[in-house]
């Protein structure tokens, strides 16, 4: 596997110029995610109204994969329902395990750019940090409904 596919433009761009790396005003949810092997940290912040994700952001510190993955994720889930976002999280986690269908990868839009990380076991935890944190929040939200 070459670099060209791995640290691709989508990833480096979201890492250098994140769209959603800031604090959210009055978030409904704030959850910390930590990846002890790399020391990646993110704090995911969400606003959820009537089952729809109305706002999302993160702050944190870590490798390009963890930070870009979180940024791409937020881009993707804004305006989606909790159920849609949960289903995307499942697709993403399957993709990283190398188990997703082409259709699923396509539905993940830019997040599909992280597909190659499935070949780098040592970096999988970085890619899934944001998504795991998201899942934890949304499952709580589901429990509330």
């Amino acid at each position, binding site marked *: *596997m*070459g*670099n060209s596919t*791995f*640290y691709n*433009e989508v990833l*480096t*761009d979201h*890492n*250098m110029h994140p769209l959603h790396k800031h604090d959210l005003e009055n978030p409904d949810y704030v959850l910390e995610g930590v990846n002890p*092997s*790399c*020391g990646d940290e993110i704090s995911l912040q969400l606003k959820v109204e009537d089952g729809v994700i109305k706002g999302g952001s993160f702050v944190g*510190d*870590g*490798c*390009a*994969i963890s930070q870009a993955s979180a940024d791409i994720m937020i881009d993707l889930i804004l305006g989606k329902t909790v159920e849609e976002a949960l289903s995307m999280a499942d697709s993403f986690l399957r993709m990283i395990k190398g188990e997703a269908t082409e259709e699923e990868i396509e539905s993940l839009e830019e997040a599909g750019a992280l597909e190659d990380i499935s070949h*780098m076991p*040592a*970096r999988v935890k*970085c890619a899934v940090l944001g998504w795991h944190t998201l899942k934890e929040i949304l499952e709580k939200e589901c429990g509330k409904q």
Partner: protein
Amino acid sequence: MDTQTRIAKVDRLRADFPLLGEWDLAYLDNAATTQKPVQVLEAVKHYYEAENANPLRGVYALSELATERYEEARALTAELLGAARPEEIVFTRNATESLNLLAYSYGSAHLKEGDEVIVSALEHHSNFLPWKAAAERAGAKLIQLPCTPEGELTAEALSKVLSERTKIVAMTQVSNVMGRKNDLRPLIDMAHAAGAVTVVDGAQSVPHMQVNVRELDTDFLVFSGHKMMAPMGIGALYGKYELLDAMPPFLTGGEMIETVHWDRIRYAQVPTRFEAGTVNAGGAVGLGAAIRYIRDEVGFDFIEAQESALVKIVMDGLSQMEGITVIGSQKAEDHKGIVTFMVDDVHPHDVASILSTEKVAIRAGHHCAQPLMDFLGVKSTCRVSFAFYNTEEEAEAFLRALGKVRGLMGYGK
């Protein structure tokens, strides 16, 4: 030794390492573990094919042979470290286990409320956590010995934290992050004058330089075999005989006793007292073979010359590269085969992943030294670490690959 002879010797020695021939890779993570020469692999194989029985037990010839091989490894280890007698060497799994043995056995026997244990800021978690736990068990206090920004432990810094309450001073001889060799003898003398015992972590020094425990006058010293060409799972604790002799057992069970009855137990003499259960004889034989290999085929003069030459190439190259910060001393001669650095804007794990695709293996992370990372004000770093079998070409391949990193991540365009 002139450069040409040195390079020829590296080429010759590399042929002893089967893995180096298997992988098209510059393996520069030797501080984590080294590769194994065929001499060590064959010795372990031969032990299990022709000499294996449970050592120290049977009275039949084969068991006696196994015992002989195991004790031969102990004698070789004692000779390597300049110990006064082989009984001063206790075989363990690794440096971590040696330090836990000390913290539980020596620590529980000698630490009491109000005592102090000094641990340097440089320590690997294995020379920090066991002492932290031992201090907590005893109600003693753990005190940090700071290092200089160059990664050096000084007598001056020790004098500020040492007192008559100090019972144990634990320090590394070469930091696995800073790579700096500490001149520990003056600090050890000071600790002794204050009535404390000294524990030296030799995990990164013993494989790379001639360490003599009597010249150091340290009470204890630990190291791991796998960082010096031996198999994983064998390491050693050196202790002055009279100190070891007065210590209670760590693990109890088979082999470490003289007599056991329901109501009275006599533990075995040192070092058997500390080697409960069936020992790792194959590993010990491998360690013995590694020590012989380093002594007879390689030599510490050569190891130091080769590793210094490689460090010089890397330090010179890094100093000319933009966006690189070397942690600790900026002088090549202060780095014992280890150089730790940061790349501006790029997380160490991304650096290591990119280098991996360029067929260069380096370490990224906190190197099991998070208190030192806190001390340095960083979260993680990149580390390149050499063994004598590394070549100039590999050092240059590392620099070339590193030179691509910031560009690949979209910086400096």
